[in-house]
């Protein structure tokens, strides 16, 4: 007997035929694995310095060489993967959360709320991203950090001493604040087209509430393009985090981030090219992987759109 089919199963079948998308998926899966098990995978302590081995090129003991303080570049890249992945996932989840809620409600109910949401979306998109992140960092980072220090001294709970926490909260928050509008627009457009479909009308005729119709019939059918957008958004978020760290408004050293590693490597690229090449290559590969995966998902979930 033939197995019953659905959108996702069909999509997976089509995705498996796309080699580039599978390669992208493999890279992303590897990134997830590295991010999750970084502390056990890293060959060295990412903070540990060895001044007798400063800026050495790749060798057996240090596959990607060492930086100008003798720290193992591979270990820092692995921890940087953790930073990149955490930031990308958290930012995308927050942005998707905001975008889906606002876009779905605006598209489903329309009216004044829809106009307000779209006006707010346009306004947010008009704000220069980098400027907004710099302002948020400059104005909020220190108060948050000071508050956390106060909490630590009161409780001596080491969680408040995690310097990455304040960085992440701010980086997540500020990036999510500028990343949600595309998701809101996408979901709104999907909901607008789905809400007049016959099965939605039928659900209404059966007396189901708007909330149930939206949650059970509209949103699940709007997910296809959203999945594609999310996969592309993850890559974009990683690049964005690297860009902010490169510019000094992201994750604070010595916490490694691919962006601040690239920034440091750029200063010494003529003498120690591996310090620039390694993080830049990793960032490039991961970004391309997310793009391949996004394209593959788009083709898989939207076969009619293929050329």
């Amino acid at each position, binding site marked *: 007997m033939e197995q019953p089919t659905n959108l996702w199963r069909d999509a997976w079948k089509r995705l498996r035929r796309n080699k580039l998308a599978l390669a992208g998926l493999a890279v992303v899966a590897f990134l997830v694995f590295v991010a999750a098990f970084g502390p056990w995978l890293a060959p060295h302590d990412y903070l540990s310095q060895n001044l007798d081995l400063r800026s050495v090129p790749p060798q057996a003991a240090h596959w990607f060489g060492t930086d100008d303080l003798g720290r193992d570049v591979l270990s820092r890249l692995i921890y940087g993967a953790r930073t990149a992945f955490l930031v990308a996932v958290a930012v995308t989840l927050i942005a998707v959360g905001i975008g889906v809620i606002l876009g779905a409600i605006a598209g489903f109910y329309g009216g004044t709320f829809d106009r307000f949401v779209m006006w707010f979306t346009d306004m947010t998109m008009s704000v220069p991203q980098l400027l907004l992140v710099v302002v948020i960092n400059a104005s909020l980072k220190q108060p948050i950090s*000071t508050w956390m220090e106060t909490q630590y001294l009161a409780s001596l709970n080491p969680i408040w001493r995690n310097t990455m926490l304040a960085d992440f909260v701010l980086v997540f928050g500020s990036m999510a604040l500028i990343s949600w509008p595309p998701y809101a627009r996408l979901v709104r457009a999907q909901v607008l087209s789905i809400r007049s479909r016959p099965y939605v009308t039928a659900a209404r005729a059966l007396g189901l509430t708007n909330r149930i119709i939206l949650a059970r019939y509209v949103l699940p059918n709007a997910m296809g393009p959203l999945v594609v957008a999310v996969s592309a958004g993850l890559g974009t978020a990683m690049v964005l985090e690297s860009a902010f760290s490169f510019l000094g408004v992201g994750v604070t050293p010595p916490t490694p981030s691919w962006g601040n590693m690239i920034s440091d490597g750029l200063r010494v690229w003529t003498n120690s090219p591996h310090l620039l090449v390694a993080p830049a290559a990793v960032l490039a590969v991961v970004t391309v992987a997310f793009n391949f995966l996004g394209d593959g998902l788009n083709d898989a979930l939207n076969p009619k759109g293929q050329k």
Partner: protein
Amino acid sequence: MKDGMQPGLTRRGALRLGLGSVVAVAAFGPGAHIAMAQEGQVLKAISPAFSQDWSPLRGGGVPYRWNSVWNGSAMYFNDKGEIQPYVLTEWTPSADFTSWTLKVNPAAKFADGSAITAADVKGSWELSAMPATKNQRVDQVLAGVAGYAAVKDGTATDISGIVVTDDATLTVTLSGPDPIFFQRLANHIAPIVKVSVARGADGNEVPDWFLGANGATSGPFMMEAADLDTGLITWVPNPNFFGEAPKLARIELTSVEDNVTATQMLKSGEFQAHTELVTSTMIQDLGADFAAGPTIPTSQHFWFNTTRAPMDDPKVREALILAIDRDGLIKASFPDGPHQKTDTVMNSVPGEEDAAFVPYPHDPAKAKELLAASSYGGPEKLPKLMFVGISSPANEAAAQYIAEQWRQNLGITAVDMKPQQDQYAGPDQNAVQIFRDDVGTRVPDGASYLAGSIASTSGNAQGKMGGYKNDKVDALIAEALTKPADDPARVALAQEAQRLFRDDFCFIPWYKQTMSRWANANVAGMEKNLDWQIVAPWAITIA
């Protein structure tokens, strides 16, 4: 006579002549080429910023580092720290060192050929002291002169303590004895300019008087043009310079902000010198000659604010210092030089070497004990430690190294770093405990060095060390300052003050500064002095 030949010149003779000419050109040609090149040599240098204000009276910034090229000073120090006459040729103190009689070089002229008079010297100093001039360091030169404060405060335009006796003589009265006042004049902080051009009727500086060829400066070169938008400044020899004639035909200073680009341009020979190149790989990129130079009385340290927790506990301070391997600190920040590790506050001055001074040891075990015995009982209850002044790759490397040493040796994990330094006024300004900054002096004198860095009246002690005050240290420095420059007691008292300060555990000693040439090996005469100036710009040549 044969066709085509001159009488007396045979074919063989002509061949010999031709061969001889070839040999002569081969042998002497390059020399002739060098001689011709020297006559028209152009020094192409890089400025790391697009400076918009080139007044020689600002006493700081990128333009200051080029002051000696186009401005004469009262006196100057050579690269060995020996004082040299310049616009002033004589300086005679009164018996109690409260007044000085200064003589102007009778040959001294401005670029327009007019004579430099004692009134120009007085006017130049007054102009530098005017608050609107915004000279960053004029206090270092004139603070001790009677009547200076009134001009600095804007309540007068005339420094009453400086009196012009005649065209070639002026008398300076000080508010107190200063045996080394003459040394304070030997710099380009308040250079000698033509007052009738530079100073307006209200006593303030005439805007942009210094731009272009106006003949109002007194150095070996004079400004030819300044295109501030494209960042190109050019100087040509001053035909009326009263010293040795400059050898260069021209100096071109071009703004290149990016250090990596600047390094490549220097490496390729497109440029030959830099104003101040600070990269961690300077020596690797451009060679030891490029960075070579004398150490100057300026040093960089990490200062503890002794009034802020946890630095208010001397045991914590000592623990934080002893936990650091300072050989590693210099290796992490300047592994190839040019700066050198130091143990002391005062450096590159007489008395720097003090056999009785005990450098801070690297003793992690004792550091751990001290931290445990402190009022905080260990690393857990220690407030977060915050550095400021971490504004360059070397500073960042040093601060990260220190933080890692504290993590490994003391278990301290909460350390934060910020680039801001002077006038730090962030929301957390009251939480900053460690300031990275330099201290130093423009005179080769240890007592002055300490007076400006650890005496309770110094900005460093009041600001970065949070009001540090040790009465014994103050008294020793104050007494040292009254001794003549060549009195061994001046040095001995300063050394004793430094030893006492050492026992207060208020700083992490880092490095003493080398004043690099920042010029390619083929450029001669780019040696600099403790005033950050090219000592003899007239002697610069390019091989």
